[in-house]
């Protein structure tokens, strides 16, 4: 599978967040602070984020790894790493 750049990962996350919570303003998200403190996502919304990232990037995110998606930065790191690991 091709490499995923940080920019691509960031764009995929923003697309996903905006489709689920259209009030999200990408420019206002602080990258190293918990996402769910900044965007109102309940467990149903969060599951939809995981499903859409899977659809977009083909990366399967097991439940045990949900903690890796706490902040925008950590989520980007995780997605890039997972793709590189193939």
């Amino acid at each position, binding site marked *: 599978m091709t490499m995923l750049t940080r920019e691509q990962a960031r764009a995929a996350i923003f697309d996903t967040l905006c489709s689920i919570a*259209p009030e999200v303003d990408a420019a206002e998200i602080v990258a190293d602070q918990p996402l769910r403190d900044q965007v109102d996502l309940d467990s*149903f919304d969060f599951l939809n984020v*995981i499903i859409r990232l*899977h659809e977009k990037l083909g990366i399967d995110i097991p*439940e045990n790894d949900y903690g890796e998606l706490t902040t925008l930065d950590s989520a980007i790191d995780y997605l890039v790493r997972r793709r590189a690991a193939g």
Partner: protein
Amino acid sequence: MSEFRMPSLGADMEAGTLVEWMVRPGDEVKRGQVVAVVETQKGAIEVEIWESGVIERLVVEPGARIPVGEVLALLRTAGEPASRAPAAPAPEVPAPSAQAPARTVAGDRARTSPAARKLAGELGVDIAAVRPGEPGGVVSRADVERAAQAVKTGSAPAPQREPVTDWQGRMRKAIAAAMSRSKREIPHYYLATDIDATRVTDWLAGENLKRSVAERLLPVVPMMKAVALALREVPELNGVWADGAFCPSAAVHLGMAVALRGGGLVAPAIHDVDRKNLDQLMADLRDLITRVRGGRLRSSEMSDPTVTLTNLGEQGPDQVFGVIYPPQVAIVGLGRITERPWSESGNVVARKVVTATLAADHRVSDGHRGGLFLAALARLLQAPQELK
């Protein structure tokens, strides 16, 4: 000839506005089919018909505000001949279209893109009054531009939409009316119990590991099933209070309290929760939440919950004591599942724990019976593999 009447879509609904007919005279309809859209304080609701037949006449025109119980249409049921007298000319029925003044049930704040909001500010357009091009869609820059153009030319933006503030205000009023009536009329009693949720969360983690992302279950799903099965053991918590007496319900229609993004909440029912498997419940929950937040609810979901479940989720508080939604007689609350110290056989161990609460109507049940319900719930959650 059978009469199709304005249904009651909640304890405090006195009237509703007919927004749209989905059928025309002469159309054949089947039991359970959505035939009309009615505007209530809780948003636009799709109304089903509960008899099969042929629409003889539409009595009411869209736009009319109709009291609960009034005739909306006449239905010719199977075997009945068509009326010999020429039918009264049917009112002009607009075909259902994206132009219908249907609002989404979801909080409208949520359905606006930041770019549209910014443009609205620049153009001096009240963003709250702009509606998306499609029902359930997101307000885009194009929608804002259209609204700005309409203001300039003096025409109303098409299609019309009520400002969000009014809509939210009306939902607030509906909640206020129902909750005030509840606290005025229902002598609540409250119980709480901590339940060891380690087994159910472990079982769920194992189950979800085997599943594709799209098939994963949320923790609330086995909880819903356990609540429904526990209610079977204490039936005086499941039903409605009507005309000074309790009417138990054989079916468990679980009202799910769902918060809206823009504020407010609704608690429509998932039907027959005790008889469905977890996959079906997850599918029903997904469908229900998606429609609550972006589409429309159906009349049967609004009118027939027999009990309510409020689950404030993984980011919520540890416990919630609910207010009963009349005419129901109980509401079950689930707090956040957290790891807590748990004493077991003389040792203190770390366990995943959830606090389950019950608020119930003392006219119908007593604390002892309510306690048995919570005990049954705790017991059922210790054997999650049985919650199929």
